[in-house]
């Protein structure tokens, strides 16, 4: 070891040279290996990284490889490289454009209904004096409950002959609707059910945001003579800007990836009215067993979602803060 020692003289004065251990990497390594924190972190990070590699990173890399080959399930190593052919196959799939259109319509409809309604309810909740917890608890109920159970419930209620909705309308002599059975009303109805299910979630987030605004700001505005609308538009809305952006991004990402709802509620809808993009991916992968094209379709969706999220964050980032 290159430790430089000096004779230790009896009279150790200030001019004596001390033992100096060089700060080279071996020394640092041994020092680190001695620290208990190192071992704690190491023994926990190692399985973590292994898990992430096997179940996260490797699948992502595999996805890129899968999308570029014609995958043979029975003999994977014989899969032929086809480059971008899978992508063009997907574009030419008869249901591709229908599913894209349906998915985008779904996203827009659910966005346009969820944001105003949940914002309005959040304002109500933030301004009432008593019973807030009770209301929140009941409004949040659909979020907690199993989606599949809820979907069965609504299929039952919205059956066009025997369902309760139409029975009530019949009883009130109002025109009935075909709800999930008609190609024009199926998508909006399904969106409505989705909104019903997730409304409480967004209401809770927005209410929490609203309640975080200090009361003094409202008092100051009141003193300056602001009415309710101005107080909302000039104070509440800007100050929950970052919460609203979060809600927007969550909504968009969620709506673009709907699978369970259309699969169970309508199986794609009367005709293809509720055939969403993820149904296409699923059927390509597990009904037609074409893994290559299915993954290509999924990658397309990934890029789209990425672009949308980046756009949203760039365009909507609020400039106010307090």
């Amino acid at each position, binding site marked *: 070891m290159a430790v430089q020692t000096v004779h230790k003289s009896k009279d150790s004065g200030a001019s004596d040279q001390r033992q100096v251990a060089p700060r080279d990497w071996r020394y640092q390594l041994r020092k680190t290996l001695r620290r*208990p*924190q190192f071992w*704690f*972190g190491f023994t*926990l990070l190692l399985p973590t990284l292994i898990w992430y590699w096997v*179940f*996260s990173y490797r*699948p992502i890399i*595999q*996805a890129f490889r899968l999308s570029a080959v014609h995958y043979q399930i029975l003999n994977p190593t014989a899969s032929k490289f086809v480059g971008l052919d899978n992508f063009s196959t997907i574009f030419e799939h008869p249901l591709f454009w229908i599913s894209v259109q349906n998915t985008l319509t779904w996203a827009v409809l659910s966005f346009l209904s969820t944001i105003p309604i949940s914002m*309005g*309810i959040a304002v*109500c909740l933030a*301004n009432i004096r008593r*019973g807030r*917890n009770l*209301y*929140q*608890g009941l*409004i*949040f*109920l*659909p*979020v907690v*409950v*199993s*989606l*599949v*159970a*809820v979907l*069965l*419930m*609504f*299929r039952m*209620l919205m*059956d066009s*002959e*025997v369902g*309760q909705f139409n*029975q*009530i309308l019949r009883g009130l002599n109002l025109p009935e609707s075909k709800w999930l059975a008609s190609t024009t009303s199926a998508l909006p109805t399904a969106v409505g059910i989705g909104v*019903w299910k997730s409304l*409480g979630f967004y209401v809770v*987030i927005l209410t*929490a*945001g609203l309640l975080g605004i200090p009361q003094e700001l409202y*008092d100051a505005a*009141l*003193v300056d003579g602001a009415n309710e609308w101005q107080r909302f538009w000039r104070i509440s809305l800007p100050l929950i800007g970052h*919460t609203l952006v*979060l*809600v927007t991004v969550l909504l968009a*990402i969620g709506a673009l*990836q709907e699978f369970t709802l259309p*699969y*169970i509620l309508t199986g794609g809808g009367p005709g293809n009215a509720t055939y969403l993009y993820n149904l296409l991916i699923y059927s390509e992968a597990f009904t037609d067993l074409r893994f290559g094209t299915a*993954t290509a379709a*999924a990658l397309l*969706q*990934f890029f789209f979602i990425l672009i949308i999220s980046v756009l949203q964050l760039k365009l909507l980032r609020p400039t106010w803060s307090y």
Partner: protein
Amino acid sequence: MNIDTKEATQAVRYRTDRWPRRVNLGQTVLHLILLALTLVTTVPFVWMIFASFKNFKELVSTTALLPKVWTLANYEGIFSRVNFIAAFGNSVIAATTVTVATLFTSAVLGYIFAKYHFWGKEQLFLLLLVTMMVPFAVVLVPLYITIGDIGLINHLGGIIVTGLWSTFGVFFMRQFMESIPSELIDAARIDGASEWRIFLGIVVPISTAPLAALAVFVFLGNWDSFLWPLVVLNSPEKQTLPLVLAGLRNLFWTRYEIWAAGSILTVAPVMLIYSFASKYFIQGIAMTGLKA
């Protein structure tokens, strides 16, 4: 200028000042709106509970809420045709295992990323975070192939092993643990506590609130998970509850009263827990939103 708020409020006259003081129009309107929404949210469930006790003829003929003839035949139908108990058990095993594992890994990793300092820490964290951005559909097929290679297809382990770590959980716990004063941990170290002792004895007890919120979040997410179990679990006795419930559509075609019974069976446990713990559920979600 120090204006007393009450005086200032009184300086502004409202139309409603002319009304008798007990009528608080603003509050009443708000309560009416909220009441309406609450009805919309809860009436379907109330309807379903009673529908599960009706027979088919009664269900489709009247809109009356309460059944004229109470029957348990629907529940009998479910238990006889479908192995509901097995599915329930599968769901419970999967959800609790995943929740416990995720809580542990998220807490530990959150602690490491919040309180430890090492070379490459932020880069590593970013690497982990990136995986959250990839939608599940992208890794659906590769994961299926991987699980197949491991041999866990049609096995409960197939849906458990993919849920052991949660990037969201790590992110969430790290956010919280950054607010734990480092002095506590340093003091414990000086007193000679081992790292595990520090973690289990100081960090975890402080973090019970976010841990509980995370537990609720992960449990519900796994309990209601549909796509991945649909792909992995093929045989009926291995399936989880949502799969079995969805199968009722085909097994009991338009026998809505049986659907109602199945739905209530699935929903009842969660609703029961929710009725006691709703505050914690909601606080957890609110915490998520505020931290993000």
